[in-house]
C-alpha cells in the first residue's frame, strides 16, 4: 500500500507517497538528502543516522510511514555555524568522511541529553557507530570540545 505522508526534514516539508515497506533511509535519499547513507543495513554502523525529534534513529531499520510529520534532522541541514560541525572540522575529525555525519548527529543527541559528558560517556554513546578509518579520538575530542564551548558560552551569557 502507498500512503501520502509529510516528511519534515530540516524544517522543510515534503509531501511524499511512500510504500508501507519503504525505509526512511531510501525516502530521504530520494528527496536528495545524501548525507544519510547505507553502511550495513542492520543498524550496526550508524552511517544512516538521523535525528527524529532529537532522538537518533537508524534510518535503515525505520519505516518511513512511521515518520509522518515527525521533525527530522540530518547533518546537511544543521545550521551553517553549527558548533558540533565547527569542532569536528577543527579537530580534523574525519578521514574518508562517510560515517562522520552520523557521529555529528550522535554528538548532538548526547549533548542535548547530557551537556557535560565525561569522555567515558561520550564513548558509550558512540558505541554503535563505526569509523573504519579509525578517527575515534578526534571525534570524541570534538564532542568534548563542543561541550566546553557551550559551557563557556553559557557562562558568558550569565555573566
Amino acid at each position, binding site marked *: 500500500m502507498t500512503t501520502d505522508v509529510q516528511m519534515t526534514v530540516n524544517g522543510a516539508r515534503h509531501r511524499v507517497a511512500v510504500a508501507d515497506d519503504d525505509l526512511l533511509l531510501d525516502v530521504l535519499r530520494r528527496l536528495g538528502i545524501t548525507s544519510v547513507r547505507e553502511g550495513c543495513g542492520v*543498524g550496526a554502523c550508524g552511517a544512516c543516522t538521523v535525528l527524529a525529534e532529537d532522538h537518533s534513529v537508524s534510518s*535503515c531499520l525505520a519505516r518511513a510511514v512511521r515518520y509522518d510529520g515527525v521533525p527530522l534532522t540530518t547533518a546537511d541541514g544543521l545550521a551553517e555555524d553549527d558548533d558540533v560541525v565547527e569542532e569536528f572540522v577543527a579537530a580534523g575529525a574525519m578521514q574518508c568522511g562517510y560515517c562522520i555525519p552520523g557521529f555529528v548527529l550522535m554528538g548532538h543527541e548526547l549533548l542535548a541529553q547530557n551537556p557535560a559528558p565525561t569522555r567515558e560517556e561520550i*564513548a558509550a554513546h558512540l558505541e554503535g557507530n563505526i569509523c573504519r578509518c579509525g578517527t575515534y579520538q578526534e571525534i570524541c575530542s570534538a564532542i568534548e570540545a563542543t561541550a566546553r564551548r557551550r559551557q563557556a558560552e553559557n557562562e558568558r551569557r550569565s555573566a
Partner: protein
Amino acid sequence: MTAEMAAPLGAPTLHRPDTLDEVCALLGSLDQAMVYGGGTAVQILIKQGVLFASDLVDLSLVPDLDGIERTDTGLRVGAMVSLRRMETDPVVRRIVPLAAQVYGHVANPRVRNTASVGGNLAHGDYRLDPPTALMVLGARVELRSSAGVRHVPVRDFFVGFQETAVAPGELVTAVEIPAQTGSSSGFAKLSSQSVNDWPCASAAALVTSPVQGQRELRLGLGALAEVPKYVSVDVPSDAGVADAVRLGQEAAGPVIDPIPDIRGGADFKRRLGLVAVEDAIRAAWGSTGGTETGAAGRSTGKEGSDARRNSRRRWWRSR
C-alpha cells in the same frame, strides 16, 4: 532442477490499527501475523530474508502502550516503551535500578531509541540482556488477546529456541516489574569479539535482604542456553562473597548449556558463563553491606571482566 529454499512469502502486509481491540482482532483473524513494535528486529529479519509472516500489525498508533506507571508493587511498563527510556527514565532508575542498568547494555543507543520493551521480549532471542534482569526481579509479562488478558512470569516466558509463551492471537502489552527494595544487584556481560558485540555470556544477580538468616541469591543467565535461564539459591546471611560465588556457580552450572557458534564453542561459553556469574555476584555483593570475609580467594582485580564498562572507563585514562 535442484531444490532451492522454499520461496519466501511476498512482502508482508502492514496494518496500522489505532485501538488495542483492533490489534487483537487482526492478530486473531490473520493467518501468520506478527506484531510490529519498535521494528528493529523485524526489519533485520526482513533484510536477511528470514521473516516468515503474512502480515505485520504496527502498534505505533495504538494509544497508552508507551506509559511507565508506578503501581503498588513496582512498575507497569507499556510494551511500546523504548529500551532507551528504560535505561534513562529517573523512575525506572530509582524503582528498578538493575533493569535500567541492563537495558543500557542492549545493542547501541540508536537501536535502544527505537526498539521496544515488548518487542524485545517477544523476539525471544536467547542472548538478550533484559530477560536476565527481569527474571531476577520477578517481573511478569502481560499478554492480551481478544479472549482477554493473562500474565506470564518472565521466568516462564521463554519456552524454546526463539520461542515464547505468546500464543497465536496474543501480543505483549506490558511488563510488570516489582520494585527492587532491600535487594542489591549486579550485571556482567562478556563478549568474545568486539566489546560491543552480542554477549557470549551474561548474568544478572540479585541478592535479597536477609530473612531468618538467609539471603536469596537469584541469577538470570543470557546467551548460555537456548533460552534465558533462571536459578536461585539460598545463601546464609553471614556468608562471604566467595561462598556466595561458589553457591551461585553451583546453582548456575547445571542449567548452562551453550550453543556453539562463531563467538565460541560450548566449553568456552560455559567457562565464561561461570565468570559472568561470579562477576555479577561480586558486583551485587559489593552493595549488600554483607561481609567481605572469605573473599580472600581470587580477586577480580580492579578491572572486573565487563569489557564494555571497562573500555568506557579505561579508554580515557592517561589522556
